[in-house]
């Protein structure tokens, strides 16, 4: 398992770095899909099967397709279109990013989670990630998730309306 983890982790990080480095948005999107798929596998390894499926369906299947769709629609694929100019921004970003990740790693090792609290045994967490476990919890009146769930539905509705309004071509734009 550990070997699998390392392979996936390196793939994941490598793909994400490649996503940032490459100049081609389509390739960026593909690398991101790889990252997402790796994360989905991590979910499976963390016994969150439902999330893994949703991750693939929503992120890889819908969101990234949407990205690709927009990239192709706007024909932004030409690599030279948005060439980066030389500024100090990447340098500072790299420095700060390094500092940030170093600090995050430090904080992880500092908190030493497994020393603070022992990990839960598998028989506790394994049922949680199934569709049944998620669903029962999500709609359990004793749990606080129903209201957020409903609000999320409203949020999605708003997003749909907003996206339609935003992307819709206004008629008066073309009348002289």
């Amino acid at each position, binding site marked *: 398992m550990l070997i699998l983890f390392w392979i996936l982790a390196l793939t994941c990080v490598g793909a994400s770095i490649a996503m940032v480095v490459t100049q081609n*948005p389509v390739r960026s999107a593909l690398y991101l899909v790889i990252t997402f798929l790796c994360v989905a596998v991590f979910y499976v390894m963390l016994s969150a099967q439902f*999330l893994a499926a949703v991750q693939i369906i929503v992120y890889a299947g819908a969101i990234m397709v949407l990205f690709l769709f*927009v990239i192709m629609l*706007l024909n932004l694929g030409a690599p030279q279109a948005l060439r*980066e100019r030389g500024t100090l921004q990447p340098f500072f970003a790299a420095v700060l990013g390094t500092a940030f990740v170093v600090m*995050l790693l430090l904080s992880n090792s500092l908190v030493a*989670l497994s020393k603070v609290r022992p990990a839960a045994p598998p028989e506790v967490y394994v049922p949680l990630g199934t569709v049944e476990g998620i669903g029962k919890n999500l709609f359990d009146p004793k749990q606080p998730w129903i209201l957020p769930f409903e609000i*999320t539905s409203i949020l999605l509705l708003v997003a749909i309306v907003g996206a339609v309004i*935003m*992307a819709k071509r206004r008629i008066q734009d073309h009348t002289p």
Partner: protein
Amino acid sequence: MITTEHYLVLSAILFTVGTIGVLVKRNPIVIFMCIELMLNAANLTLVALGRHFGQVNGQMYVIFALAVAAAEVSVGLGIIVAIFRTKETINIDEVNLMKF
């Protein structure tokens, strides 16, 4: 033996990569992708910690984060399309009305 810390470190690295991407890229679509990556890193943390503590809350958060991310992407891409329609470019450095 994969401990929770493995996942935490991994997500920290992914998050930072996403952050740097947001900072250095000029293509708003790619910036969006980097934000998605950051979200995923956070989600991974949540799931890992949820497993660590044997709680379902982590996964719940991720479900909501997914929904929010979907909404964000749809609206964000709508904005990008609108910007492209008016400015004929989406270079984020040319969308700079928020300045002196």
